[in-house]
């Protein structure tokens, strides 16, 4: 849920990754590692 912003942000930026779910996992992992979520 918290990563839902990723998909719409990338769409607005004109970026189309092959696997959006994997991008979300990477972003979430970093945010958790930095204790931001």
């Amino acid at each position, binding site marked *: 849920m918290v990563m839902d912003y990723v998909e719409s942000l990338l769409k607005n930026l004109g970026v189309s990754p092959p696997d959006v779910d994997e991008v979300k996992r990477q972003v979430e992992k970093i*945010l958790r590692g*930095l204790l931001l979520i």
Partner: protein
Amino acid sequence: MIELSKKIEEARRRSELNYFLYLNEKAAEEVELLQRAGRCGSLCGVALAVKDNIEVAGMPITNGAPYMRRIADKTAAVVRRLMAEGAVVLGKTNMHELALGATNVNPHFGPTKNPHDPTRITGGSSGGSAGAVAIGVADLGVGTDTGGSVRIPAALCGVVGYKPPYGKIPVDGVYPLAQSLDHVGFMARSVRGLVRILSAVGWAPQTLPTIKRFRFAVLMGVAEPTRYVEKAFWRAVEALEGIGGMRDEVFIEASKFSAARAAILLSEAAANYYDYLRSSISYMGRDVATLLSAGAALPAVAYITAKKVKEEATQFFNTLFKTYDVVVSPTTATEAVPIDEAANIAVRPKLLAYTELFNLTGHPAISVPAPVSGLPVGLQIAARDEDVLLAVASAYEEEAL
């Protein structure tokens, strides 16, 4: 320059290892011209394997990505400096796409193959340069290191990989990946050989300080090395004790440091390659496309927090270096993995966990081979003072190898 012609010939003969994207067929001729003009200096004929994200005028440059291919119109400052002393560029080497990865499995140019077992990775992203040094074709590999990209392939190919302190080697003419973490570094077959070459251009001392007794800390808790790596690492530690090292063990909580390195790397890389990310993502390898997209999607709060953690990490190690002359760890937590297993998500942290710490802090670090009879394993040594670092590494090399 028969020697150089032989090196070119050997590079061609071993082309299945896939180290070179471009070979300079005129290398021997260029050195002959310098000699005839009396302008060949103390590095006359030293053969350089230059990673393909570093510019050499008149040669193609791809940054590991065919969609970026062009002919360079100038030579990077680091290469210019070495060439001014008579070193010659033997060729441009294969690398991980955009230098954004540690396996060197390049989807466009093919993987570079480990010189000790061609079914395995060289590691990366400077894998072509490390391999070329390992098979004796190049005397010096010139690469870049943003998370371990010089030290990792050096460890897996059984050569020495040196990342000087942040900012020491000019990055002019080098494709930036993440400016806050990018270093230019070098690979050679021995510490002594490395120092001999670098001292000729003022990037290492002419004479190393004598090290009789020193204190060192083993970094614990960073990653879980394989049994094979662990065994080799502790043999290397014994060798350090054999040259007068007094050992302690220090546990560190590295996961926050690792997240900070990733946040900085991906945010800066996404900004650097933003145009390509929008225009060429369908040409990119899946791993690179995913990581750059993650960088574009990270919020500013992550980048700024990561920069604060970077300062904390630097302070942490600066404090550690008040007690210890050097700190050591395995260079990687795994030996070279099979090429067809390189995409496994568990491989990346096993390659990067130890090396990335010193991209975050900017301290100088070196990987030297551990005493093994099978696949190579690296011992990473880091210090605050680069002369002490090179002196310890050199003494270790004499004792252990």
